[in-house]
C-alpha cells in the first residue's frame, strides 16, 4: 500500500468534510490527517470532537469548518458522548424514527484527550462494544494551550511543563503505548497511521468505519509549533518517524498483528530528532539510549507480527 503514490491520490474521493479557512497553524499535520480521514468516512457520519486544537481551529463562533453534524465535548467524555450518540441512533432506528441504516459515529480527539484525560471513558466505550470509530490525533503534547507535556510526549522532549535544563533532560517518562492498550480490550480493529502515508491512512479509516463494533486508530500527526521544527517538515518528519521505528505503522485485526510498512533498515534516529527544537538539548549518550530502546520496541512488535503470520 505504501509504495503506491503517483496516481493513487487521484482515485480518492473528492469529498471535503472540513472546509478551508479554518485557523490551524501553518504546516499542521493534524488538520491534514483529518482531511484525509474524512475522505474515507464520507457524508453519512456524526462527529464527536473533544476539546483540543481541532475543536479550537474549526469552530470559532459563529463559524464552523465542519460540513458534517458535529458535537463538541469536553476532554474527558468524548468516548462517552460518542457511545451515547451511537446508542441514540440505534434506539431511533428501532422506533422507526431514523431511516439511514449506515450512519457512522466517529469520535476524534487529541493525545491529551485520549491518553490522559479521556482514557477511562475510552476504555469504557471499547469494553461495552459500541459500534464507533475513535481516532486519536497524536501530536505528542497539549499544543493548543501552549505546549504542555502529556503522557504521549516522548522521552527527552522539552515542553513548558517538562523543561530541559541543568537538573532535567526534559520529559522523563516514555510515551504511553495506547494502541497496545486498545488491543488489550480485544476490540476488532486497531491501527496506527500517519498523514505522511495518506493512502495507508485512508484505507485504515475505511476499514475502521466498516468494522462492526469499536475501532481505534492512532494517528501520528506532526506539530511544527510544539515540536519547534520548520513548517515545511511536517510530512518529512512523519515519514522519518516511521522509518526510524519511532512510530511503526501496523494494524491489528481481531488480535492479529500485521505490519503495514517495513522499512528495509531502520534509519538512524538523529535523522528524525535533529530538525526538532524539543530534542536539541539531548546529548549523544541519551540519543543512543533512546535509539536502542526504540529499536527494541520495534523488533518486539515485528516479532509479534511475524509469529502470527
Amino acid at each position, binding site marked *: *500500500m505504501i*509504495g*503506491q503514490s*503517483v*496516481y*493513487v491520490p*487521484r*482515485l480518492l*474521493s*473528492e469529498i471535503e468534510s472540513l472546509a478551508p479557512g479554518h485557523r490551524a497553524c501553518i504546516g499542521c499535520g493534524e488538520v491534514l490527517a483529518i482531511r484525509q480521514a474524512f475522505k474515507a468516512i464520507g*457524508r*453519512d457520519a456524526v462527529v464527536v470532537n473533544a476539546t483540543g486544537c481541532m475543536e479550537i481551529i474549526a469552530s470559532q463562533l459563529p463559524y464552523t469548518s465542519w460540513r458534517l453534524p458535529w458535537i463538541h465535548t469536553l476532554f474527558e467524555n468524548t468516548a462517552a458522548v460518542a457511545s451515547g450518540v451511537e446508542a441514540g441512533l440505534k434506539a431511533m432506528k428501532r422506533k422507526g424514527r431514523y431511516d*439511514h*441504516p*449506515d*450512519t457512522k459515529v466517529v469520535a476524534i480527539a487529541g493525545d491529551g484527550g485520549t491518553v490522559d484525560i479521556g482514557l477511562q471513558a475510552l476504555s469504557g466505550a471499547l469494553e461495552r462494544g459500541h459500534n464507533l470509530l475513535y481516532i486519536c490525533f497524536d501530536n505528542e503534547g497539549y499544543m493548543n494551550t501552549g505546549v504542555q507535556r502529556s503522557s504521549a510526549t516522548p522521552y527527552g522532549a522539552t515542553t513548558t511543563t517538562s523543561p530541559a535544563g541543568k537538573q532535567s533532560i526534559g520529559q522523563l517518562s516514555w510515551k504511553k503505548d495506547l494502541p497496545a492498550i486498545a488491543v488489550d480490550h480485544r476490540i476488532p480493529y486497531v491501527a496506527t497511521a500517519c498523514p505522511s502515508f495518506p*493512502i495507508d491512512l485512508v484505507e485504515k479509516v475505511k476499514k475502521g468505519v466498516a468494522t462492526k463494533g469499536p475501532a481505534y486508530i492512532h494517528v501520528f500527526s506532526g506539530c511544527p509549533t510544539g515540536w519547534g521544527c520548520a513548517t515545511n517538515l511536517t510530512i*518529512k518528519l512523519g*515519514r*522519518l518517524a516511521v*522509518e526510524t521505528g519511532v512510530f511503526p505503522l501496523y494494524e491489528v485485526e481481531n488480535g492479529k498483528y500485521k505490519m503495514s510498512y517495513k*522499512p*528495509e*533498515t531502520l*534509519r538512524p534516529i538523529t*535523522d528524525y530528532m535533529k530538525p526538532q527544537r524539543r530534542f536539541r538539548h539531548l546529548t549523544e549518550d541519551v540519543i543512543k539510549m533512546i535509539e536502542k530502546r526504540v529499536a527494541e520496541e520495534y523488533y518486539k512488535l515485528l516479532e509479534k507480527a511475524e509469529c502470527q503470520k
Partner: protein
Amino acid sequence: MVTLKIDGREITADSGKTVLEAARENNIYIPTLCVNEAVAAYGACRLCMVEVTRGNRKRLVASCLYEVAEGLVVDTQTERVVNIRRMVMELLLARCPNSSEVIDMARNLGVDKSRFQPENQDNSCVLCALCTRVCREVVGKSAISLVSRGTDRQVALPFCDDSDACIACGSCVYVCPTNAIKMEDRGDVRIITWPSSAHEFKMKKCASCGSHFAPEKQIAFMMAKSGLEAEKFELCMNCRP
C-alpha cells in the same frame, strides 16, 4: 437542477448527474463494485440496479449510467431490485467463491450461498475493468486491458508478457475492489501479480541511504513527463534536501 424522488424522498440534483451520484450525495446507499469518481461510469457489476418509474412505465436500470430527470421516481429497495441484486451477487459468488470482499458484500445483501457451481476456487477478479479503465483514463498508459471473450475473459498485459508500457505505479492494485491484483516490494524488486501473470519491476536505489524507493520505469516516466534532469531523481524522499 431537476427534482426527483428516491425512496420517497424529494431530492434536487444537477442535471447531467447519474441517479447513483444523486443518491450518494443524499446518503442513500446503493451497492457498487465498479464505480470510482475518477473514471467514467461503465456499468459492469450491475449491483447498482434500481427501479425507475416514468409515467406508467416501470423498469430496472443501472443507476451508475442512468441520468436524473425531472419528475423521475426511483426505488432502491423494491422486491424486484432486491431479487436482481441477489441474483447478481450469487453469480459473482460463483465466480469468486473465496474472495472475502465478495463474500462480505453478499452477506450484506442477504446471500449466504450461491446456487451456481463455482469453477475456479482461486479466482477473485470480477471483471469490473476498474484497473484497465484507471490505467487508460487516469495514468494514461493503457498497459493492461481485458483480453479474450466470454468465459476466457481476463485482465492481462499484452500477450501476458513483460510490457514497456507498465510503469509499476500500483494504481490498478489500489483500485481493485476485490484485491485480485497483488503488489509486493521485495528489496530491489517490485512484484505485481495480475490474475493472468506476475511480473517483476526493478526498483531504484537511493544514492545516499541505499534504500529502494520507486520503480525505475516510474522514475523514467516522471522524468519524461516533468522534463527534469536525472540528478533530481537520484535521492529518496527522505534524503532530498
